[in-house]
């Protein structure tokens, strides 16, 4: 008997004290809440485009242009100069495709219903000294290959982000004129070329071409491509290499010893200009302005670490403990830390906490195909009733930030701050009065008209029996909203909106339900009255969502214009927005679009949230921590973060 226990004791002792590896000083250790699902570029840009995959794939691929954080400006990266729409020339279609357009892409060569006969093209010169990690040069051939193979394999078939990055209805062909000049042939002028095709991540042709050729010989080439996970030796032109993936546990990424841009500097000036300096090659260029005055931000490009180790912590509580203990230096979390964890971490020494606005919106909307939701006055009156500040500040204690515009203020480049906000600054009684006024003027009547008392700021007589201008009663309608477990902030808003609506005699009730169910009913079946959801808005460099959310061509089941907003004036404006290659012009149009949104209210935007993150300040120094979406939105800034000794 005793022998058994003695044995166990000895074993435990050994196990406990002999097995922990020592921390490596130069290693950056980060956590994330879910394992990646792929280590393959085509898959994580494609059908497996989950945020966790992007965390472990940052800092690998070069691009012709790039959008820099924190200003989201488009600047050249591999390109040697800024892009100018005036540089476009035309050429006839038959010259580029003497045997005709490839069959599978024929449908894309139409503009405004007519077949195109001419293509426009522009040449972009590239730097001639950038190299992959295996020593091979990064050339125009890599750029051409990346785009062309996407088109060949089928952008839509590849799925995910690919059709956005190489839009088949915009890109006709990309070819390398010589090793360092890329020529893009476009079907039409489209902002997507500028904001998505140009900054597209470029892969190494000498690595992928032979592999893809092999896959093309199989029955299911795409399946074979997506299944390929042996990517440890994929060449990288960024600060890091592809990581070794120990499934369920970690991804171990080494630094790229061959990183060309080691030692580059970026400077941001008050006048909005951006300066890029690379001393080893005597490069000092200025974009978007004249570089006057002091730089309010300067960053050095590293990487300054020896590697990054991504560990998987599936539970937030344990991730927080690991952070406290120093097992990790930072944790990637797309929704940020909850209040409880914030409090817990604020008591741990050496933990810095930062707070940034998320790039997203939470909103409610009506099914604009039904009455009375298709009546603008109804929507405007409804919006007047909603006191966002009250819910955000008084009820939710600042957990939500009131937002009335479809564009979050954090995206400084595109945000229009001068849009109408219904009921702005009004108290309860004022709001009700105003709403009643709007509705009455539009011809609505009540059996019992709501009355307010300004002194007590309350509704003293609840409205009942609201009737439309034609005399028919407004029927009780349902708003679908997410439940407590999914998002308590939206649930709270839903409850208050229900109360305020009913106070005025607008007969609505909230139905708290599962996210999947809302998606099913709203997007796929389009069987709903009102709904409340939210969006993560994607790429801040160019807000394409003005198109997909509100253009009338997306009103079919499955499309994102589920509310059925169809405004020809808006459609035309959005189309103009999409086809502009002029940044200033695009910005002006975007401002106009936001004004229309604020007036027409296809969405009544409610709030945005902050994303709170924490990191070990005794280990890390970031060049800046104020950025839309937080550190996790910009890949954790792995290439520019410095380690303290």
């Amino acid at each position, binding site marked *: 008997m005793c*022998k058994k226990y003695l044995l166990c004791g000895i074993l*435990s002792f*050994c*196990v*406990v004290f*002999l*097995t*922990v*590896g020592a*921390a*490596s000083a130069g*290693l950056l*250790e980060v956590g994330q809440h879910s394992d990646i*699902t792929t280590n393959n570029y085509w898959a994580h840009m494609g*059908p*497996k*485009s*989950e945020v966790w995959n992007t965390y472990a794939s940052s800092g690998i691929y070069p691009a012709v242009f790039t959008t820099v954080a924190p200003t989201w400006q488009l600047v050249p990266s591999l390109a040697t100069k800024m892009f100018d729409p005036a540089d476009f020339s035309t050429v006839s279609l038959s010259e580029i495709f003497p045997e005709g357009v490839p069959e599978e892409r024929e449908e894309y060569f139409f503009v405004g219903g007519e077949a195109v006969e001419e293509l426009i093209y522009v040449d972009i010169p590239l730097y001639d000294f950038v190299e992959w990690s295996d020593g091979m040069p990064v050339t125009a051939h890599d750029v051409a290959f990346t785009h062309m193979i996407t088109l060949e394999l089928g952008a*839509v078939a590849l*799925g*995910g*982000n690919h*059709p*956005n990055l190489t839009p088949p209805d915009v890109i006709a062909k990309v070819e390398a004129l010589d090793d360092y000049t890329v020529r893009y042939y476009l079907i039409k002028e489209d902002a997507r070329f500028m904001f998505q095709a140009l900054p597209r991540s470029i892969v190494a042709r000498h690595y992928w071409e032979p592999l893809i050729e092999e896959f093309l010989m199989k029955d299911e080439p795409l*399946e074979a491509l*997506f*299944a390929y996970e042996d990517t440890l030796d994929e060449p990288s032109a960024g600060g890091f290499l592809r990581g070794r993936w*120990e*499934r*369920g*546990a*970690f991804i*171990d990424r080494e630094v790229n010893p061959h990183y060309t841009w080691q030692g580059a500097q970026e400077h941001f000036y008050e006048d909005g200009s951006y300066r890029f300096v690379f001393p080893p090659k005597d490069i000092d260029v200025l974009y978007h302005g004249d570089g006057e005055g002091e730089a309010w931000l300067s960053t050095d490009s590293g990487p300054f670490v020896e590697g990054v*180790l991504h*560990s*998987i*912590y*599936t*539970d937030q*509580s*344990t991730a927080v*403990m*690991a952070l*406290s*203990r120093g097992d990790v230096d930072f944790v990637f979390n797309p929704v940020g830390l909850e209040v409880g964890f914030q409090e817990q971490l604020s008591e741990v020494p050496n933990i810095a906490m930062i707070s940034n606005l998320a790039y997203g919106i939470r909103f409610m909307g009506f099914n604009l195909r039904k009455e009375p939701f298709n009546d603008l006055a109804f929507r405007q009156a409804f919006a007047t009733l909603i006191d966002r500040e009250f819910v955000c500040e008084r009820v939710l204690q600042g957990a939500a930030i009131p937002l009335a515009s479809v564009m979050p203020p954090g995206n400084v480049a595109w945000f229009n701050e001068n849009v109408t906000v219904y009921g702005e600054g009004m108290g309860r009684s004022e709001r009700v009065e105003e709403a009643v006024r709007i509705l009455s003027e539009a011809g609505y009547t009540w059996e019992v008209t709501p009355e307010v008392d300004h002194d007590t700021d309350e509704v003293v007589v609840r409205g009942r029996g609201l009737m439309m201008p034609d005399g028919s009663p407004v029927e009780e309608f349902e708003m679908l909203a997410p439940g407590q477990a999914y998002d308590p902030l939206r649930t709270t808003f839903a409850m208050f909106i229900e109360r305020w609506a009913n106070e005025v005699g607008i007969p609505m009730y909230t139905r708290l339900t*599962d996210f*999947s*169910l809302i*998606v099913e*009913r709203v997007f796929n079946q389009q069987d709903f009255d009102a709904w409340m959801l939210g969006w*993560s808005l*994607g*790429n801040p460099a160019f807000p*394409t*969502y003005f198109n*997909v*959310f509100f253009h009338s061509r*997306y009103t079919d089941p*499955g*499309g994102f214009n589920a509310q059925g907003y169809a405004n020809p004036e808006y459609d035309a404006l959005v189309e103009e927005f999409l086809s502009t290659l002029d940044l200033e012009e695009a910005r002006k149009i975007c401002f106009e679009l936001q004004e229309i949104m604020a007036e027409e209210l296809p969405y009544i935007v409610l709030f945005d949230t902050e994303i709170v993150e924490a990191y070990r300040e005794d280990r890390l120094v970031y060049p800046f921590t104020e950025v839309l979406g937080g550190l996790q939105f910009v890949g954790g800034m792995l290439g520019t973060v410095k380690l303290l000794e």
Partner: protein
Amino acid sequence: MGRYVVRRIIQVVGMTFAFVTITFLILQAMPGDITNLYISPEIPPEVRQALRERFGVDQPVLSQYARYITNFLRGNLGYSFRHYPRTVWDIIRERLPRTFVLFFTATVGYFYLGFTLGKIIAWKRGTALEYTTTVGGVFLYSLFLPMYALLVIWFFALRLGWFPVSQFITPRLWRGVEVSSNTIFGYIILSAALFVALMSLVSVYGKKYSRTRKARRNLYWGIGGITLGILVTGWGISGYAHLAANIFHHLALPVITLTTGAFAGSMLLMRDSMLETIKEDYVMAARAKGLPDREVRDRHAARTALLPMVTSFTLAIASVLNGGIITENIFSWPGMGQTLVKSIQTNDWPLALGTFAFTGIFVLFAHLAVDILYAVLDPRIRY
């Protein structure tokens, strides 16, 4: 007996089909599909539609079912949607060893602890030991598991720093290692299985080759010690010993949590069962025969009290493969439980169904095993 087993196997097969079909229908009835995971303004609707077509989720339910069942019969569980093009079987194979090692160890742990304590406190009623283990055990049993797990982690990992906070391996240690963690898990399972198999053989055949009882006891310890020595040396030579030790280090906290949290159930079951068997005449007879107290307790009272425990234990072992979603989540052991829940949440129905079917079949066979085991353990039962 043979006929009985055959009959039951046929039942199991039938139940498997019913079970798979019903689960399939339930999963299909859930709103939404895999594309809900990729709702983003960056991803155009054509792409989502193309994805639906690739996975066949826009096909009528009946044709999806027909395709699934024909594949199922050939042992093909299909592709996971979220992890496409990985097959369901491949994913299960990756997650299984972790789940198995953790929950098998924990289950054996809490049953053994419960069995031993239940045996002891039933034998000696009214002692301080009985009081503390019963109150303490029930208290821990009724603690909300996530809270208890976090407390354990907070105390032993954060406060004392003896154990890692979570995960099943320490990434720092495994960074440069060539071999994958699943391989090591496999070797651990193999070593344990070898050891158990060998000791079982010894216990069965040892009787023939030892002349006195004492000799037999020495035989056990001897062979046990030698085998252990060989295994340890083998691990040492392979150079993987520190990796296996690391896994054990990570195993400690979840096993401690589960064992201490769950032992009260089996302890009280054992105790109640013992209290019944203690009253039996053969227990009194054993004492009268002059058997030492421990032998009376273990060979007579506990042995027959074991029968209900065996059922409970076998069924618990079967659900080892289900994993525990809470434990796996908090301790970051991505295993079968997490796989199941994640796959349901993301409408990845082939993975959900495959995981269910896999563990379901196990449970069905476990029930069969229990019936057979009962007949073996209690000679009075014969089918």
